[in-house]
């Protein structure tokens, strides 16, 4: 269901998205508003930049000692009565969950937001095995009804207008036709999902932070859906990419201060839930997933992308994301961070993503753990080209350009020819095949280059 069959290249999908300009403006402004809220709250903290540095250093340390911390986490979690599972890839992750469900005769599952389970396409897998999975985050429930993937990791339904939600809820929850009041629609979802929470046999949550020294983990939500699910069902499975590990509980103070300020401009999420031991009569499981992460850890230029705490600040600030929408990135995690994570998982399918950026660097500046996102985008471009993922036409063009730029005489000749062509035959260059000219005029070609002028005027 959420699996993209064949990715459409970002540029193509983006052009389609932009064809509805009013909606694009709305999307852009709505996300810019979130960026502005982030700015407002972080500018109130004089220690913000040192906090980012601290968060970054803790994560750097954790990544450099990850195996030790994972073992400590496992040991402590097991001592707390939590069952720990390890999954090499998406398939194994999904099968572990299926096995737990089958063993307990589970028919109904509620799931709070977990980008990892999106990455593993867990929902379609479980549904194909006859198990009901209900996403309980409001935004995720909306897109689930619509058979769409989330378009943003924090605001999954940000690509939709309230009228879209109204239509979807009218169809699935029989709300009043045309009533698009967010309060009314949220109340309808509350009633619908309360029943799902109560009926569920098993609850799946993500993990925001896993603490090595305690074997506990923290899940953050504003809606309370993770807690409603986890405390109501008799089984709780928490799924985590292995990079979620932090060494100590005291480090949580740094990340909880950074996370929501960056994500939504709130000082903290409504609920920051610290799970340590299952309650009486409950089973608690943790699935630790690799799925390409150990490979990324080995890529020196890209490993620090694993510091990501999934706040999506880089989405909100990205001028390209805001004007192309999450679906144009054809992956569970879109935006700038998705563009440096996804090529690691599948280079061929994601070779377009590192180019879906102007390298403006705003993503790097808002990142609460100081991931050098725009530099990694640049580096991925080099890797993709070296690995042969550039089109032959582009490669040939670049070879030609490299030749011209390497030889001053050739360059000057080409320059003269180029200017001459532009001056004399605007129709020849200014055609619709030239993407520059589609919505922009070509520069007016001068008679002389600066070099010509310089030679003529220097001694004068």
């Amino acid at each position, binding site marked *: 269901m959420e699996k993209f069959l064949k990715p459409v290249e970002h540029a193509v999908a983006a052009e389609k998205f932009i064809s509805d300009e009013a909606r694009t403006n709305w999307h852009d402004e709505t996300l810019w508003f979130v960026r502005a809220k982030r700015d407002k709250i972080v500018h109130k903290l004089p220690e913000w930049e040192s906090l980012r540095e601290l968060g970054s250093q803790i994560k750097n340390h954790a990544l450099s000692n990850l195996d030790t911390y994972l073992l400590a986490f496992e040991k402590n979690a097991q001592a707390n009565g939590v069952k720990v599972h390890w999954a090499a890839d998406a398939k194994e992750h999904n099968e572990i969950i299926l096995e737990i469900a089958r063993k307990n005769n589970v028919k109904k599952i509620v799931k709070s937001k977990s980008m990892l389970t999106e990455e593993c396409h867990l929902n379609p897998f479980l549904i194909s095995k006859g198990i009901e999975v209900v996403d309980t985050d409001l935004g995720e429930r909306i897109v689930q009804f619509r058979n769409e993937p989330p378009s943003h990791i924090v605001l999954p339904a940000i690509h939709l207008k309230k009228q879209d939600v109204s239509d979807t809820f009218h169809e699935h929850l029989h709300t009043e036709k045309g009533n698009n009041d967010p309060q009314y629609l949220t109340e309808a979802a509350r009633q619908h999902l309360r029943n799902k929470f109560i009926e569920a046999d098993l609850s799946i949550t993500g993990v925001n932070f896993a603490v090595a020294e305690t074997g506990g983990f923290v899940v953050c939500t504003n809606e309370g859906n993770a807690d409603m699910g986890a405390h109501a069902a008799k089984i709780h499975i928490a799924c985590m990419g292995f990079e979620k590990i932090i060494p100590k509980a005291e480090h949580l103070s740094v990340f909880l201060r950074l996370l929501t300020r960056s994500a939504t401009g709130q000082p903290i999420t409504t609920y920051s839930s610290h799970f340590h031991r299952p309650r009486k009569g409950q089973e608690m499981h943790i699935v630790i997933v690799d799925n390409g992460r150990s490979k990324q850890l080995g890529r020196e230029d890209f490993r620090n992308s694993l510091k990501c705490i999934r706040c999506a600040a880089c989405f909100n600030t990205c001028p390209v994301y805001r004007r192309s929408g999450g679906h144009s990135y054809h992956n569970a995690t879109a935006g700038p961070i998705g563009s440096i994570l996804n090529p690691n998982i599948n280079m061929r399918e994601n070779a377009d993503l590192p180019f879906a950026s102007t390298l403006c660097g705003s993503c790097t500046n808002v990142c609460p753990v100081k991931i050098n996102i725009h530099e990694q985008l640049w580096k991925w471009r080099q890797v993709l080209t070296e690995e042969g993922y550039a089109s032959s036409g582009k490669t040939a063009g670049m070879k030609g350009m490299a030749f011209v730029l390497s030889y001053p005489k050739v360059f000057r000749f080409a320059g003269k020819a180029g*200017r001459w062509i532009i001056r004399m035959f605007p129709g020849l260059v200014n055609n619709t095949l030239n993407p520059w000219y589609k919505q*922009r005029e070509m520069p007016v070609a001068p008679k002389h280059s600066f070099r010509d002028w310089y030679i003529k005027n220097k001694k004068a």
Partner: protein
Amino acid sequence: MKKVSLFIPCYVDQFYPNIAVATYELLQKLGCEVDYPLNQTCCGQPLANSGFNGMTSACNKNFTENFKDADYVVCPSGSCALHIKEHLHDDANPAAAERIRNRVYELTEFLTDILKVKQLNVSFPHKVGMHISCHGQRGLHLSSMTELVSPEFSKPEQLLNMVKGLELSYPKRKDECCGFGGTFCVFEEAVSVKMGKDRLTEHEENNIEYITGGDVSCLMHLEGILRRQKSPVKIIHIAEILNS
């Protein structure tokens, strides 16, 4: 007297010689000895940003050859200056490349940080909108960035404040990218143009006559859209204002 070697980006040489002339004259007026190495071509950024940094070695070699003896390499475009600062390497002469990397300056930072210009005897009585270039700002730190919690400053603004009669304004989103992005402007044409149009809309809300900036590539992109829209707003490079 400071000896400056002018680094004029390829497309400025070819399409915007007036900006290069203004840069040249301005530096001379401010007492520099200015030289233009005649065999320069390009910094290689269009290749590198497209993922073909591996093809830039001959281009880099040529650049190094042209600028190896320069005291100061000054460029009226932040993006190209940044590319040299970050990526110029020459296997045949690594020391020369390193020397250049440490001596390359974008024009406005050269004026404020090296020449320490305190006054300019120029006037430009117009309403001007400032376009901040991402590479100049976030790459070369020519001005403070809205994302960071840090004191406010701007080297280009500091200079424009010395121009008599000039009324400076910023768009609402002060430092959002214009969408040029090198080859992004053609490979992601739709997003690129939309970003540019949005920048222009915000500038136009300030009733400006000119848009200025320190990066010719951004200005070329914005000019292309303005001219297609038949807008009366004009583009002017900061060197042209400071040299007016």
